[in-house]
């Protein structure tokens, strides 16, 4: 990466010798990982809906899987954006929908109910990651962190507001001309 970054510099520009630690936290990295996972899963749901419904004994629900795919991709894009928290919250809501859909498929007459149970376990695990990550980000971005104070004494006018008011008032151009 440093090599590529340095290629774009001109001769006299500083080049990276060694990099310091990234300001990205583990919670940021987890959100990014979940975002990419979401986009990957959504793409699979969109493009291979028939295979998925066959594997889960949910034939005839291909449309629903594709809609879920679009939802996953959108949540993934949000999780990769600056508003990671909104992305993770939408993922958690989506996890709930996934669980409801899978529970509906967990019928005695479903020959693939073993796969459904496996899918439920996977969704459960990912939901826990989503919730944990959302909680960590909420703490990290909380504007209440640190000392709260007001600045009622910071006028910026050493001689006071009354002296400052209009001190730089410009003469109207006509007056200035005369």
């Amino acid at each position, binding site marked *: *990466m*440093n090599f*590529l*970054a*340095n290629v*774009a*510099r*001109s*001769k*006299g*520009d*500083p*080049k*990276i*010798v*060694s*990099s*310091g*630690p*990234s*300001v*990205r936290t583990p919670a*940021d990295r987890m959100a990014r990982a979940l975002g990419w996972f979401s986009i990957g899963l959504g793409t699979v749901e969109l493009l291979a809906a028939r295979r998925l419904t066959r594997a889960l004994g949910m034939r005839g629900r291909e449309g629903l899987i594709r809609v879920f795919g679009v939802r996953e991709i*959108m949540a993934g*894009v*949000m999780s990769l*954006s*600056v*508003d990671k928290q909104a992305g993770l919250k939408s993922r958690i809501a989506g996890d709930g929908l996934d669980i409801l859909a899978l529970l509906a498929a967990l019928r005695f007459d479903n020959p693939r109910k073993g796969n459904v149970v496996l899918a439920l376990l996977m969704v459960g695990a990912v939901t826990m990651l989503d919730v944990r990550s959302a909680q960590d980000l909420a703490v*990290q*971005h*909380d*504007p*209440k*962190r*640190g*000392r*709260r*104070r*007001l*600045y*009622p*004494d*910071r*006028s*910026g*006018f*050493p*001689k006071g*507001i009354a002296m*400052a*008011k*209009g*001190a*730089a*008032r*410009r003469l109207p151009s006509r007056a200035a001309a005369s």
Partner: protein
Amino acid sequence: MRALVWHGKEDIRCDTVTDPEIEHERDAIIKVTSCAICGSDLHLFHNFIPAMMPGDIMGHETMGEVVEVGGGVNGALKKGERIVVPFTIICGECDQCRRGNFSVCETTNRNKALAEKIFGHTTAGLFGYTHITGGYPGGQAEYLRVPYADRTHIKIPAGMTDEQALFLSDILPTGWQAAVQCDIEPTDSVAVWGCGPVGQMSIRSALLLGARQVIAIDRIPERLSMAEAGGAITIDFDKESVVERLNALTDHKGPDKCIDATGMESHVNMAQPATLLDRAKQMFMLESDRPHVLREIIYVCRPGGVISIPGVYSGFSDKIPMGALMNKGLTVRTGQTHVNRWTDELVRRIEEGQIDPSFVITHRVALEQGPEMYRVFRDKQDSCVKVVLKP
């Protein structure tokens, strides 16, 4: 040397980099004594400004001591002199520079072709910003190469402290230009959206220029308190309707002059669905800016009034009410700041004690803490309004 380097979205690191070198005879090298994080650095932090590249050194609010000068500086600068570096790099010779339009200098952008493709014409080279404006290394570092240094500098008078002088690089002239281009008259109500550092400077500038009343709009208590300290009437848009309150304060005529010190990252508010839509569009790259404040200004500004936009917009904004803008006969003035057009006057005003821009500083930290301070500033934690870094 150490420098704050952009590695990607929300990824700024304090790296070790090679020292800058004199590249052209009009260059100078300064040892940075103070630099600051600007609100527009956050647009880069969020990767909302296109054409940043990993390895770009951040920072365009910088000052320091001259340690090396090229042969073409011709005595305009000498080793040991203290200077503030304006964020716009200027040649001082082109047609635009001669007109005082320094932020659209025709010479200094070393990626002119890219700027012409995107903007239609080139604009000035800027420090620590996108490659569209030249990709020049910025000043959040121990040393800075200043191109066209014989013109791109502001000399600091003896007796003026770093903290009094530093903001001549950007936010003070930016707030000043925003107010000046409002053509303020003694009967005017001036409304300022956004009480970040540029908003604070705009408020003080409008007051100095003699506005009848200055109204400041934000939602962060510490920023509102700072605005009030500077003589503004404040509106907390989380608690009251901006339009209703502005109308009430102006005898239902609307503010005569409006300043958008917010720019492309307007606050997203659940109570205002348009802001949610803007954010969604921005996320999916269907719109580059969130122009909620601009829409509100056009709606509430008094017919015949002036809208001044110092806030940074990067590309495309949707649903701008052109009908209201046209029918109300509003004048829009904007632009990156022509820093050197204003600095002689502002240096004098600081020396005379009319204004001391250091009031805005809330955090002073070492350069190594810079990456973390980007987060603190972005999330408005610890009542942060302005961060100064000491390399």
